[in-house]
């Protein structure tokens, strides 16, 4: 009897937890989720390169080139559908940190230019990722390109 109760309770808890996970997975603006996921993929691949640059992880040219290749691919992707109008902090509040200024027509050339600068920095990193010195020499430019966009178009972390 006690075993049966336990099974039922456990099953109920699993269904409940699963429900929360599904709600969490389905809630929120899909475009915001897509761009956050894209940023997460940058961070994951940068983590591989950065760990080697810092000396925390032993350098491996194959892994570094793989990560840098991913980075270059990610940076070259067309993200138009990630950023539809109406998905800035002005409309979505804390769900996003993307400032409305990014959608102003006066910002368009700058946004495209900064995205291009990241793509260039990522390609340069890919070309240099065969050596530790190459990774170390190029990671600053990649960080600078990421930061240049965040500085203007992302709400500061408080």
């Amino acid at each position, binding site marked *: 009897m006690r075993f049966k109760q336990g099974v039922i309770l456990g099953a109920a808890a699993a269904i409940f937890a699963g429900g929360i996970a599904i709600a969490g997975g389905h809630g929120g603006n899909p475009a915001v989720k897509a761009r956050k996921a894209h940023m997460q993929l940058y961070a994951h691949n*940068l*983590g591989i390169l950065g760990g080697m640059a*810092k000396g925390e992880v032993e350098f491996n040219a194959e892994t570094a080139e793989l990560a840098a290749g991913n980075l270059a691919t990610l940076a070259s992707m067309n993200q138009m559908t990630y950023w539809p109008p109406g998905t800035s902090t002005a409309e979505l509040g804390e769900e996003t940190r993307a400032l409305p200024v990014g959608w102003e027509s006066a910002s368009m050339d700058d946004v495209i230019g900064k995205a291009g600068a990241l793509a260039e920095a990522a390609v340069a990193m890919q070309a240099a990722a065969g050596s530790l010195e190459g990774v170390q020499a190029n*990671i600053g430019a990649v960080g*600078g390109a990421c*930061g240049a966009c965040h500085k203007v178009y992302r709400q*500061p972390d*408080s």
Partner: protein
Amino acid sequence: MRRAVSVLAVLALAGAAVFWWVTRPVVAGASVLDGITPDLAQGELVFHAGGCASCHSADKADGEAKLVLSGGRAFASPFGTFYAPNISSDPEHGIGGWSALDLYNAMKHGVSPGGRHYFPAFPYTSYVRATAEDIMSLHAYMQTLPADATANRAHDVGFPFNIRRSLGGWKVLFGSEGWVVEADLTEEEARGRYLAEALGHCGECHTPRNVLGGPDYGRWLAGAPNPTGSGRIPNITPAKFDWSKADIVEYFTSGFTPEFDTVGGHMVDVVENLSKLPREDRAAIAAYLKKVPGVE
């Protein structure tokens, strides 16, 4: 009665004399720079380490435009809004006419060539620890930067903080040429201390201030409200800040946090400057931060 009045008058005069003496702008004579030869490369390093362009370039300037030190950026504070002056090499609107000694007295004593106290929005409480050699080299380097004819904007500071003379008393209370962290340091840590406590002026934002705007040296680098009014500048003492030395160096180099997010807020400018220093200097600052007393 008459006697009491005259005693009071004498006391008031004596008080005014003491105030006048205590608050007088004190400067150094030319001999402090005797025998020093400026070094342009060193001056450029001091320029980046000191973060001059972050405040003195035009609002939203980027890249090469950051070397045009036309001023104009606004800095809000509880005492009013300060506007960074033009420190380009323009002889009329900037500081192109300044001698190296003028720059020395501005940075170390907070006194203008005309003998007025500067407001401590200009971080002379940090720059006071800079060496004469570095200031001389900085002066030479800044003369090579472009001239710009933008006129200075007057600070928007209300009474009584607008009485410049009272800043003499402020300096007596809060100015100190000594090091904040006095522990035994290795050569690397000592270099880091020089970069952090003198040129980099980290404490200006990361150390809380008292009601008079003086730094609370007992809570050195323990974090403070953001002067912009939103959020806090973080505590970077070992009690609250556990990044490895390699994490800190990476952050100063590329702006990436250990989670590979990017640097934010005003620190973006700081990282931009630090990334121009030799890697050993960034490592030195990281080593110093590990030696700062922990404050909860």
